[in-house]
């Protein structure tokens, strides 16, 4: 397999992208798509719980009391831009530019961190105003849905850091290319989930 990818590297204009150049890469990328399907179902369940429970505030804070338009707009924009920079990273990888690839990944990580920072600030703010996840079924489902997404993003950040380390040590080859591609898939997936959170949770919440 190591011979195979060196061969590919020597023909940069080869049809097959590097991450798909080995059988192992093909299988793992396909397997990761299937994994994303299971994660999607998990989020679908959390969304349906939220949709059923979001008006059951039990006399506690409501959506309108909590959601702050500039705050969630900022979170949304940051995450969308991070998805874009993550895409740029993959493009640079296809061109074989290790430096640019790593730079864009670092930008993505920084954007991810600022997203997490804003989200944690939002949660702390809510809790300070008595909106804890124990207060009502609405808040239980809110924190579970948005918090699960936040955990996924945090995990994605750690994952990207470990890939950056590997890129630094080993450069772009079949295995690291596959890892960059897969973490990109994961990151875009989280972005798509956030678009739904933005719509179902925040927009729906402030539009009443």
């Amino acid at each position, binding site marked *: 397999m190591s011979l195979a990818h060196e061969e590919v590297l020597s023909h940069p204009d080869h049809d097959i992208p590097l991450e798909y150049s080995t059988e192992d890469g*093909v*299988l*793992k990328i*396909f*397997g990761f798509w*299937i*994994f994303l*399907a*299971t*994660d999607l*179902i*998990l989020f679908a*369940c*959390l969304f349906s*719980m939220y949709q*059923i*429970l979001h008006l*059951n*505030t*039990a006399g506690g804070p409501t959506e309108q009391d909590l959601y702050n338009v500039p705050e969630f707009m900022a979170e949304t924009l940051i995450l969308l831009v991070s998805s874009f920079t993550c895409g740029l990273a993959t493009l640079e990888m296809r061109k074989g530019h290790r430096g640019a690839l790593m730079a864009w990944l670092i930008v993505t990580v920084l954007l991810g961190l600022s997203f997490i920072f804003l989200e944690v600030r939002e949660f702390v703010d809510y809790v300070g105003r008595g909106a804890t*996840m*124990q*207060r*009502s*079924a*609405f808040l*239980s*489902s809110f924190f*579970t849905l948005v918090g699960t997404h936040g955990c996924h993003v945090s995990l994605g950040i750690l994952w990207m850091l470990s890939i950056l380390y590997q890129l630094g040590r080993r450069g772009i080859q079949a295995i690291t290319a596959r890892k960059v591609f897969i973490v990109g898939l994961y990151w875009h997936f989280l972005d798509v989930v956030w678009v739904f959170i933005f719509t179902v949770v925040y927009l729906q919440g402030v539009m009443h």
Partner: protein
Amino acid sequence: MEAAVQAPRKSFIREWVMTVDHKKIGIMYGVTSLFFFLLAGLFALLVRTDLLVPSGLFSPQTYNEFFTMHATIMIFAVIIPLLTGAFGNYLVPLMIGARDMAFPRMNALSYWLYLASGVVLLFSMFFGMPDAGWTSYPPYSIQSQGPGIDLWVTAIHIAGLSSILGAINFVVTIHKMRAPGMTYNRMPLFVWSILVTAYMQIFGTPALAGAVTTLLADRHFGTVFYDATAGGDPMLYQHLFWFYSHPAVYIMILPGFGIISELLPVFSRKPIFGYHAIAYSSVAIGFLGFFVWAHHMFVAGMSMSAGIPFMISSLIIAVPTSVKIFNWLATMWRGAVDYTVPMMYASLGFIGSFIIGGFSGVIVAEVPLDMHLHDTYFIVAHIHYVLFGGSVMTIMAGLHYWFPKVTGRMFNTKLGHISFWFYFIGTQVTFFPMHLVGLAGMPRRYQSYLPEFQFWNDVSTIGSYILGVGTLIIIFNLFYSAKYGKKVGNNPWGARTLEWTISSPPPEHNFTELPVVTENPYQPYSPQEVEEVATA
């Protein structure tokens, strides 16, 4: 056990614990789940023993723990891991002509996770068993004291993760690693059934994870998902739970359907009747299986008319199932049926019993009749005809059928036939009377009951003892014969799927040369071939 004979002896740890070979993992799945089968069977016998007298023999709390353990172990530690983990792992790569699963290390991880989930359930026997039934409905499961429910949730989580990883492995393996020429329409029907099952696990299991996680959060983190006084909704849990757990019923029967579709043509020496109908009806069942879940909830607080769409989907799903039954019967028609042990389990044992569960399913799917029958012993009869008369019969058929492939030896045929009759008679005696007390209105999960229900309950209990004896005979026969059975050739049944073209037990990398496939394995038998089998 067998590989030790061929090669210089490897240590137990190297050979089994460290292995990533799909065949060894399959065997480990099989042996582990047979152990749990004995344990779950023991719990079933305790439950039935309690019901010998109307006042019950154990305390209600003990009884509740017994039936919870019985169902949880049977579903999550026996039937699903046996059918997908053991049969699926061992057979799929061999049947599609692959050297291993797509992700061998993840495959080993699936097994170890499964074992861990079983061990957690075992732990609960010492630290406090769950007592809320395998459905574990809140708010009762939130109020229930002790570590039982927490261990239960932990076990379900780990088993679910194992299931998802296993399913991803099957989907990738089947889509990407088939031998040259093995098109989808040439795949053995067992592989089709595992493919559909894996997709069902992928789309269903996360809902179960969501349900039990929120349950745990309500128990320990003070969330109020299911607390009606704080705006929560207990019915929500039931929706999430059944969104997984009804498809789980098909996860537990589809691979069994696949096993039957392999056995019938071999023992009838005739091509399978309606290959495409059987393959595509599995797909139809897999798809429809996600639209029937609320038929468990007709009386759970939804209006009766809201049950109508789910009643219709539940009736429709009987169509692909009956298509399979008719195709299996037609496979035997004008065949040359050999009364081998696996064939007895597959024909009389499985078809003969399973259809009772199928037909009672049509009855309880009807909203008006479910108003009476819901949660009575009629339901208990129905699920046991599906899961025991169905799934377990197919498991026994499969265990005996592939036994010579896995061990290179033949089980004791006489004991095999004796155990079959114990199983067949025991199934009817145990589970049929449950229909009758159910119709008369005896609710399930009762540690004690009204005296007029005693007669049929006692009959059931006697039947369960017959099944207990049958199980011991089977287990003894398989384990004894694995070591001392008569050696047989590579293809003692005259079967056509790829696993029978290689040695028994198969070599470590399955195929020295990848096979090239030109047709599906269900082709007519020539007299010449028959002769070869007879002399082999």
